[in-house]
């Protein structure tokens, strides 16, 4: 099957504005967009630049806008697009470094501000554990869906708020904030509040669900962000009217006595 690819090209050293390259490639039935792009890169034009790594939709490198919608190149088969003309652009809402490669630096900085890790008071146990925290299935389920984020940036590109508000935390980061805040092991919700409950925090999400529309891992950031709003509101209402906040249930530690102390080297 012959397919025409129209690809966004931009090399900052040479081009003052983007241009489009058109390639025709022969692809077979099972080929993904990534296979086709690599075929172009290896056989026709070695200067074509794109990120790729795992080719099985789990590393999150190859996010791009394919025929007008954000998709992972490796997770989109040429056939399923039902089109002989495929337009490929880099992700929107990111600065373009070259061709299909975009700059994620700002996103990673935002991610760090919301403290995306388990925060606990028992620091000694965190570094030198003596046991495991017990967790029932329903407790795991409360955050499991949101923990599967691969940080591919598709939701960031699709989000209409990000497109105008560069300070907005983005669906990916807010999803992460909820994933850690709801985790039964975490005690750091209040530390994250000042960022996620700010003017450019979760309240700039207006439920357009573009993020859920494009998520390649079934995470549904549209859902976790609304839960986050609920969590924050009940927290601030309790604080406002009762002057206290709900305490999290303490997680139980099951000790594993057979683990010996660290070896001296």
């Amino acid at each position, binding site marked *: 099957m012959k397919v025409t690819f129209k690809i966004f090209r931009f090399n900052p*050293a040479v081009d003052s504005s983007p241009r489009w390259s058109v390639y025709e490639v022969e692809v077979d039935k099972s080929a993904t967009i990534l296979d086709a792009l690599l075929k172009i890169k290896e*056989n026709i034009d070695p200067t074509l630049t794109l990120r790729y790594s795992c*080719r099985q939709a*789990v590393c999150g490198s190859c996010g791009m806008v394919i025929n007008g919608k954000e998709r992972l190149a490796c997770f989109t088969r040429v056939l399923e697009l039902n089109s002989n003309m495929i337009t490929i652009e880099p992700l929107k809402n990111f600065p373009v470094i070259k061709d299909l490669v975009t*700059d994620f630096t700002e996103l990673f900085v935002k991610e760090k501000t919301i403290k995306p890790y388990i925060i606990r008071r028992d620091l000694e146990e965190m570094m030198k554990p003596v046991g*495991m925290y017990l*967790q029932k299935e329903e407790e795991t389920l409360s955050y499991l869906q949101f923990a599967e984020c691969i940080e591919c940036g598709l939701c960031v590109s699709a989000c209409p708020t990000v497109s105008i508000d560069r300070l907005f935390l983005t669906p990916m980061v807010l999803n992460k904030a909820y994933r850690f805040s709801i985790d039964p092991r975490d005690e750091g919700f209040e530390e994250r509040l000042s960022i996620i409950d700010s003017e450019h925090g979760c309240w700039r999400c207006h439920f357009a669900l573009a993020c859920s529309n494009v998520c390649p891992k079934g995470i549904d950031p549209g859902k976790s962000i609304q839960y986050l709003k609920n969590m924050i509101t009940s927290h601030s209402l309790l604080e406002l009217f009762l002057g206290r906040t709900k305490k999290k249930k303490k997680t139980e530690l099951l000790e594993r006595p057979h683990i010996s102390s660290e070896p001296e080297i």
Partner: protein
Amino acid sequence: MVDKISTDIVIVGSGLAGLRAAIEAAGRGPNLQIAVLSKVHAMRSHSVAYAGGTAAALYPEEGDSFELHAFDTIKGSDYLADQDTVELFVKLAPREILRLEHWGMPWSRKPDGRIDQRPFGGHSFDRACYAADKTGLHAMQTLYNTCLKYDNITFYHEWFATSILVEDGEFKGFTAIEIKSGELHVFKAKAGILATGGAGRLYSFTTYGHSATAEGMAMAYRVGIPLKDMEFIQFHPTGLVPSGILISEAARGEGGYLRNKHGERFMSRYAPEKMELAPRDIVSRAMMKEIMEGRGFEGPDGLDYVHLDLTHLGEKVIDEKLTEIKMIAMKFAGINPVNEPIPVRPAAHYTMGGVHVDIYGQTPVRGLWAAGEVNCSSVHGANRLGCNSSIDCLVYGFLTGKQAAEYASKKNNPGSFPTQLVVSEEKRVFDQIFHGGYGEDPYLIKRELQNTMSEKAYVFRDGKGLEEGLRKIRELRKRFGTGKVNDKSKEYNQNFINVLELDGMLEVAEVVVVSAIARTESRGAHYRLDYPKRDDVNWLKHTLAYRTPEGPRLEYIPVRITKWMPTERKY
């Protein structure tokens, strides 16, 4: 002159081992500056793709023990593993599981809330802790996010390390290209950790992502560190046809069957007791034998296959525990595993060999450690058991991070800096390759290299084929020249990076084949049709390959045996 970045510890590679080492070092030395270099975004390393689980003896009250785990590992290794190393390794394993648990890993749980474990190939106890079949994704996310807790860890996303700087047997730093700007920088550091992963992309049909190209091994090899046991490449029995994407061993752990053309569970002929859960080398050989004897299905491009049958497991088990496999089968093969068997074939999966290190992960170079798949502390010997590699990454990440932190805090005076090495590296990278490169198209060479390796150094090998392979690789080396870069732009030049990668791949491929030719026996994953027996008298030893201008020079060191004497290996 190139920019110099001074820091205390440099970690090259951001997979499980690299990130684990970074956390350990950062936690131990709050005053140490730690730089993590990665040629992709740090959370995108190929560790994300491991699916099945992570082994550790967590529940001694239920019959598991360190002894048992160690014995399984050593038996799985076909007795080539260093036994003192294995003993240390199994003891450190459970704590790593608990650490990940504390840092937010969503391990799958038993009904009472404890971490669940599933059976895995070659293990005599169900000891693979798992998170559905996305263990790698969750582990990587957990570690990456935990790294963000430490302000003294700096990530250098998309930096490609080109060489290790060594002076008088002491580590001095790395040179690396910032891919975004195309400029060479020097990382000057007191201690370094290599965690660059394996060499699977030497093969065309492989479960590795595009980024696992062995440049860590090549870098170490070039500065005179020997590569150990490189002939042992593991082939995972179930790579999806035609792409090679990994269908995790979890599928068989949860009870999947392997069937040939006639619908037989052929494993009963090869490992009557363990059936599909025999170690990977045995299953792979069985599958290839079925295919070679005409009991497989005919596949595209000569990729004949057998069936992995999950249909009897039911939709609930598949949806709860094998979700990623379902996704992969449906998306990349158009098959719903609930109703149809999956076409699979052995695919290159793991490099048992690697940079020579001691029991604690220290390379012969002072101040340089290696952790994860890139090293060969010889826990895995001639064949690795499933789910032992992720725990190897964690354990060696911990060990090397700890040692590097201690070493760097003690070392106040960084000593002299080998500026001339940087100058010559700059010459090699830019003048020789980028500007003055000549040779054939690198992508063509890469394809030919991968095809050669797949043909000549696959599951079954023989002396004649390997010799032909070596000739071919040396010919490719000549045709490659210094490496021709077609893209001449400076910023984000992937073509250039691909050429640098290929340079290292050719070097490592030669070591693999030369080591395989020399080892005239069959052990673990290295099976010679012309020498089908294991030979403990002559070959119970590790291969060390040193670089010389004429090609690898081989030396041998004995295997360390503590209490398990080699016996015949039966499953």
